């Protein structure tokens, strides 16, 4: 098997706060192959954004990475240890070079007083040796590519002159203009209307094919995941609890939490099915449950076993991975 584009191993990360160390991500491991779309699903507070930001070392200064964590980026026949990149000049490869990111709130991601075009040109000139004229040409080409009408005129406009959907397109254009190998998309469609969301999803699918780029797609919307991702990883309270291909995870979820999520989702094809909520609330990260992190809300908890033993990942015969004692027991018996 060829090398994965990025390999995250045992990523553990806490934040120093006034109330002590708060664990945000706990032993998360995953690989993304070149050209693969990996969906990262979870509720707010599950640590999905923090995980993604770790790939670009963008977490705030009070973040403490566990020394066992490792992130390896494999580009151009080189393996780069992300945590060894200390100087800003070294970090350019993970910040806009090989990895780009688009954010949830497109209004907050652009500088309000600099035109969209200037911002696109600026980052192109930082990441390559091209001159202004060439950078402008490429930027306008990218704006055209993402379907912004009249790109030459739009180039000189400011973020407030763009509508929400346009801004997100411009954001995609900007992130892709340096031709990154990995695009991190953090809830890129959450702030958009469904009709605009559908346009942005189509656009991203086209671009993946065209540029052969991998995407780490973070969202809480399982429908968006179904339409975009190849692989899915489900997070809960900083832990990865299930991983597999999109068809496996959505059609045959193994972890009780994943099942609960799918049952809680209103579906248009079955209006008679009552909505089943996942009981209880997400525990505070200050007060993480012992044992399996989901045991406080789990409908099929085994009691004391689940409260003490932290379940390991096991892989079933189809390659789907799950961290749940009950599922593992059932599998062993079958």
């Amino acid at each position, binding site marked *: 098997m060829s090398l994965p584009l990025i390999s995250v191993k045992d990523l553990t990360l806490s934040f120093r706060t006034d109330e002590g160390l708060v664990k945000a991500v706990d032993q998360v491991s995953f690989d993304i192959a070149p050209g693969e779309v990996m969906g990262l699903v979870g509720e*707010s507070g599950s640590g999905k954004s923090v995980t993604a930001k770790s790939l670009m070392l963008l977490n705030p200064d009070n973040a403490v990475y566990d020394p066992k964590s490792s992130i390896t980026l494999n580009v151009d026949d080189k393996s780069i240890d992300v945590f060894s990149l200390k100087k800003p000049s070294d970090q350019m490869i993970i910040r806009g070079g090989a990895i780009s990111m688009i954010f949830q709130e497109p209004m907050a991601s652009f500088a309000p007083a600099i035109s969209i075009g200037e911002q696109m040109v600026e980052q192109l000139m930082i990441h390559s040796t091209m001159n202004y004229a060439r950078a402008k040409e490429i930027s306008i080409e990218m704006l055209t590519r993402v379907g912004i009408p009249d790109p030459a005129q739009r180039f000189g406009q400011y973020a407030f002159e763009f509508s929400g959907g346009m801004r997100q397109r411009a954001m995609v254009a900007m992130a892709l203009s340096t031709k990154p190998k990995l695009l991190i998309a953090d809830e890129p469609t959450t702030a958009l209307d*469904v009709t605009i969301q559908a*346009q942005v*999803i189509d656009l991203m699918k086209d671009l993946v094919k065209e540029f052969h780029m991998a995407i780490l797609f973070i969202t809480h919307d399982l429908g968006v995941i179904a339409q975009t991702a190849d692989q899915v990883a489900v997070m809960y309270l900083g832990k990865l609890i299930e991983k597999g291909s*999109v068809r496996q995870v*959505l059609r045959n979820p193994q972890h009780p939490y994943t099942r609960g*999520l799918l049952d809680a989702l209103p579906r*248009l094809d079955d209006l008679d099915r009552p909505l089943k*909520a996942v009981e209880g609330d997400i525990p505070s990260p200050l007060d993480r449950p012992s044992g399996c992190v989901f045991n406080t809300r789990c409908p099929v908890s085994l009691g004391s076993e689940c409260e003490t033993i932290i379940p390991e990942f096991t892989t079933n015969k189809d390659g789907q991975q799950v961290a749940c004692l009950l599922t593992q027991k059932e599998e062993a018996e079958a």
Partner: protein
Amino acid sequence: MNEPIISTNDLSVHFPLTGRLFGEKPVVRAVEGVSVDIGKGSFYGLVGESGSGKTTFGRALLRAAPITRGSAIYNDGEVKYDLSTIKKHELTDYRKRAQLIFQDPYAALSPRMTVRDIIAEPLEVMGLTNSREETDERVREIAAKCRINLEHLRRFPHAFSGGQRQRISIARALVSKPNFIVADESVAALDVSIQADVLNLLKSIQQDMGLTFLFISHDLSVVAHTCDHVAVMYLGRLVETAPTRELFANPRHPYTKALLSAIPSLDPDDQGNPLKLEGEIPSPTNPPPGCKFQTRCRHSIDLCRKEEPKLDKLGDEHDVACHRWKELID
């Protein structure tokens, strides 16, 4: 449908824009000529993209937005008010009968008040109780109904998660025993696993207390699961309204069809159909002539660009505003 508790006729809300010295002042036509009946005890859904005027419409029904033209009659059997001409003392009474649940449970609760004080405030402001004991009694009763742990009443909102906070906002809206509730995107800020819980709570309270809900949402699958009637708005206009099942089974307006097809399917092999909408919703200060949807409609013809369609009755309480709906039935 039951007797309507809210009945609007040609309801319009316009906001004048300032900043121009001469000539005609530009006006935002946020809601334009909307006529609907909301049956007593129904869970009435209102959907549309941002900028379609659904929030303004909901606010107009609470008189939190001015009514520029048309009428809105509130009639709960005890009292009958015309909201466009309602008098001040009547409005005070109306506030007890109609309430709002907000979208963002993090912004809607004062961080300096305890949960008990937040829920009790409407009672105190409206003078609905005579003693502190009575207020406490009412607060505990409604808190239990909204599944708020009674021990939590002394705490401050910062200690609670989104779902818990939303239950507190719901308790506050219900404590004055209203008949009509506007829930504006009340589950949009919640996670999926919590959203189902709050929806189920709203449903059970509605049946318990015989309430009428106007449920404003941009999420069609949520509306499909909770509401019995749905109205679709576009650029301030009502474009289609029908009982939920009917609307989702037989959408007639091209905009409704497009909205439905834009929902991403949970099946990875179902790549959706090619009904995707191009472009974005036009600005309400400068709406296109004729049908407001014609700029994005694939079926638009000359007539659509000239004349604004009226609501056509299809029977079965199904109304649609489209010149061509008959031809477009597959």
